């Protein structure tokens, strides 16, 4: 019965696993993210991948593959470089689990083939099984400590991280409890005696039982300590003749033995309710759930991460087939383990709380990008958050440098950025130096594509300000709101605008005004006029002037102002205000 249930569950979960694997790998060729993949068909990508893989295998690059596999996959060099504790954690879980999988779970296929004398109850195998289990548990403990006690700033833990920790923990703990329950179980003892003992003499069995109770922690309803020395000696003799060859002392299964000690007050009850079977089911079920759900959980990184590391080592942006880069970028989404290394090193991560936008953090962008790549329609709010998240990036490359699975995150942001900007939601970050990297890379897109987001952002400002025109071009002096006053206070001494007496020195020294020959068609206003507009309480006039957004922040005006007006600082305040107010208008 147990055997049949076991088989049904095994093959069902194996089936789901295989189908899941096929589905997930197929998405590497069907999902799209970014500029590169737009015009490339699935078939092209599939054949390009095969060609690329063969090209690597039959060239000197195979040496790179071997090197990366040993150093980065097996030794996890990239994790070690960044964080020794996390390296220890992952090595313990990875090697502990892999060894258990091969020696214990798949013993028919590996242990029995490799070792002619393999028997799970005999040392060293019995001891090693517990040792490997202990490694995994130690790793899980470090993971819990890191996620829940260390309080690393901005490291996020999501439901998938919980799942991963829980499934591994349940498999391990149920296994140890199962072993413990078996060690103390009288029922187990009896069936072992029946199956392997070949003993008829009741007295002999009772002596053996006494010996196992006294020496190995079996809890018996029949015999109890203290035992007669003679009986124990007889029991030992039987034990050595019948059991010892195929069963090392249970103490060697040290974690199970310890668990047995804890369970022993309940041993007889457990026996009555079939505790061993219950724990067996829990252990199997946990394993089967883990297997079936693997392709859909972050555990899929077991497959995707090594491939990502290898692909990134043998590919480069300029020389590789764009079809393969498109495929790799989707695969990288699966390779991400949400470890948060990128986020802890992100150069602008500190702003994410202020902007109430987790998508600024690299590790948190991946989920939204997955949805985008799958072709799912994202809501406006989601798009704007992700858009702000990918644009608010200094392109310092640190996320990419430290990613333990070698994802080229910076390139991913670049692609996603361009995909999102095409959707036409104004991104005011385009009007900041965050655009520098995009400018350097303008050659990678058409001119129209390059200029569109800048026009969209400027257009949104113009739209918002056009309301002023509606009233016959007469601008009513308005009282500055509290927020405006506060904003002007934040940049040092920006409230000095009221000292301006329009001497025009600022407009004369401004390199931007000079460059355009003070052409108001282009500039809208020049600096001294803008100070007057602020005095009059009509900042909307300033928001739409080209001068504000073309300001270099070079501080020439401020340096030369005879009245000590902090013109450049006021410009920053005005830009902030404009963006604030327009964003608010749009969302209301």
């Amino acid at each position, binding site marked *: 019965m147990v055997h049949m249930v076991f088989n049904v569950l095994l093959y069902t979960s194996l089936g789901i696993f295989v189908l899941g694997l096929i589905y997930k790998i197929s998405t590497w060729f069907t999902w799209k993210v970014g500029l590169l993949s737009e015009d490339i068909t699935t078939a092209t990508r599939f054949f390009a991948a095969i060609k690329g893989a063969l090209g690597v295998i039959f060239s000197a690059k195979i040496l790179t593959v071997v090197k990366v596999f040993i150093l980065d996959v097996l030794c996890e060099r990239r994790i070690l470089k960044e964080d020794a504790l996390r390296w220890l954690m992952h090595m313990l879980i990875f090697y502990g689990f892999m060894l258990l999988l091969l020696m214990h779970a798949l013993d028919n296929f590996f242990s029995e083939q490799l070792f002619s004398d393999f028997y799970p109850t005999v040392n060293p195998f019995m001891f090693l099984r517990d040792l490997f289990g202990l490694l995994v548990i130690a790793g899980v403990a470090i993971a819990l400590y890191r996620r829940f006690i260390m309080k690393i700033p901005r490291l996020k833990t999501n439901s998938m991280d919980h799942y991963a920790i829980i499934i591994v923990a349940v498999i391990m703990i149920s296994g140890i409890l199962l072993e413990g329950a078996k060690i103390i179980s009288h029922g187990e003892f009896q069936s072992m005696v029946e199956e392997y003992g070949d003993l008829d003499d009741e007295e002999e069995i009772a002596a053996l039982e006494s010996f196992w109770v006294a020496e190995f922690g079996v809890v018996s309803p029949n015999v109890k300590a203290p035992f007669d020395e003679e009986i124990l000696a007889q029991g030992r003799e039987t034990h050595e003749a019948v059991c010892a060859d195929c069963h090392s002392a249970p103490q060697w299964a040290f974690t199970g033995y310890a668990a047995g000690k804890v369970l022993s007050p309940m041993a007889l009850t457990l026996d009555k309710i079939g505790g061993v079977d219950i724990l067996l089911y829990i252990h199997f079920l946990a394993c089967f759930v883990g297997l079936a759900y693997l392709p859909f959980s972050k555990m899929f990184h077991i497959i995707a991460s090594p491939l990502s590391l290898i692909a990134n080592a043998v590919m480069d942006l300029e020389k590789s087939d764009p079809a393969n880069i498109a495929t790799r970028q989707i695969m990288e989404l699966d390779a991400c383990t949400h470890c948060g290394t990128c986020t802890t090193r992100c150069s602008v991560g500190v702003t994410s709380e202020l902007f109430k936008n987790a998508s600024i953090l690299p590790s948190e962008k991946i989920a939204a990008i997955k949805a985008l790549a799958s072709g799912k329609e994202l809501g406006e709010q989601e798009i704007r958050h992700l858009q702000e998240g990918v644009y*608010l990036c200094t392109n310092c490359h640190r996320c990419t440098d430290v990613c333990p699975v070698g994802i080229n995150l910076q390139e991913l942001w670049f692609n996603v950025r361009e995909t999102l900007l095409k959707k036409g939601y104004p991104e005011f970050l385009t009007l900041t130096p965050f655009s520098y990297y995009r400018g350097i890379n303008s050659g990678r897109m058409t001119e129209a594509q390059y200029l569109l987001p800048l026009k969209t952002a400027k257009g949104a400002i113009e739209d918002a300000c056009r309301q002023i025109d509606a009233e016959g071009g007469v601008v009513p002096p308005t009282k500055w709101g509290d927020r405006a006053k506060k904003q002007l206070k*934040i940049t040092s001494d920006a409230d000095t605008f009221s000292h301006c007496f329009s001497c025009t020195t600022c407009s004369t020294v401004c390199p931007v005004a000079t460059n355009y020959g003070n052409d108001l068609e282009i500039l809208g206003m020049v600096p001294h006029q803008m100070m007057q507009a602020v005095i009059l309480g009509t900042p909307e006039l300033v928001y739409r002037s080209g001068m504000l957004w*073309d300001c270099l922040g070079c501080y*020439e005006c401020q340096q030369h102002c005879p009245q000590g007006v902090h013109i450049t600082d006021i410009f920053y305040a005005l830009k902030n205000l404009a963006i604030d107010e327009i964003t608010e208008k749009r969302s209301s």
Partner: protein
Amino acid sequence: MNFAIFRCCPASVLLKQYEKSTDAVMAALGVGLVDIKEFNCCGHPLKNYDYKAYLLASVRNLCVAEKYNLNILTVCNCCYGNLKNADHIMREDASIREEIGGILNREGLRYNGVIKIRHLLDFLYNDVGLDQIRQKQVKTLNKPKIAVHYGCHILRPREIAEFDSPEEPSKFDQLVEAAGAQSMDWNAKVKCCGASVFGVNDNLAMDMTEMKVNEARKAGAEFLCVSCVYCQLQFDRVQKMLGDKRKNIKPLPSILYTQLLGLCLGIDAETLGIHQNQISISGILDFMG
């Protein structure tokens, strides 16, 4: 002496030669540089968008440096100006100090305002000194004609930058001359390079760069010399792009001061990344005595 080196974000991708040459020059001068992992952006690109976010990012660096008890050495004018400005505001404004300090406290950081923010040029001029620089030289340059570009935020606003006269600066000129070059007098010495609007208004950014290049050429310069990440990107990468777009431009190579000084200190061209510039500066090697 040890400094926490503040590298400037785009340098690691677009200007590796600046990192390499800075490390080599500082090692030659016996200055220890510590790379602190926890540093983040100086906040420069955030100013247009949200000043408070700029302050938060900037001040966080000061707190991190404080944790390590190291003064900050910047190699970029924008980083320099923005960190100093944030430090200034934190000293002056109690409500900002409370608000920004409060956010940073949550990750265990404290601001006490004890960290000094230094620019590479400021350190070389004021701490190392021209005499030391001359004495340490093992090779002499045969007077290449150089137009020194100061950049904005090392000069302006004066009360923040505290390096040199914003109108008539001379310290960078002296440093370049100490390295055996001839510093040319030119009109646009203190003008902006245009980098801060590149990507926003490329034509304007290129106009500024073109104006500077033309003025430097007019003064007879053979090289520009800069000491700021964004200025160098502008004069190297963007000037190269400019050359492709505007045909009448004759590119003027721009050398980083650390590269120039490194050559005099006998550091090899490879280490200094002399061949990594987009517009070749290998002509400078012809001036090596």
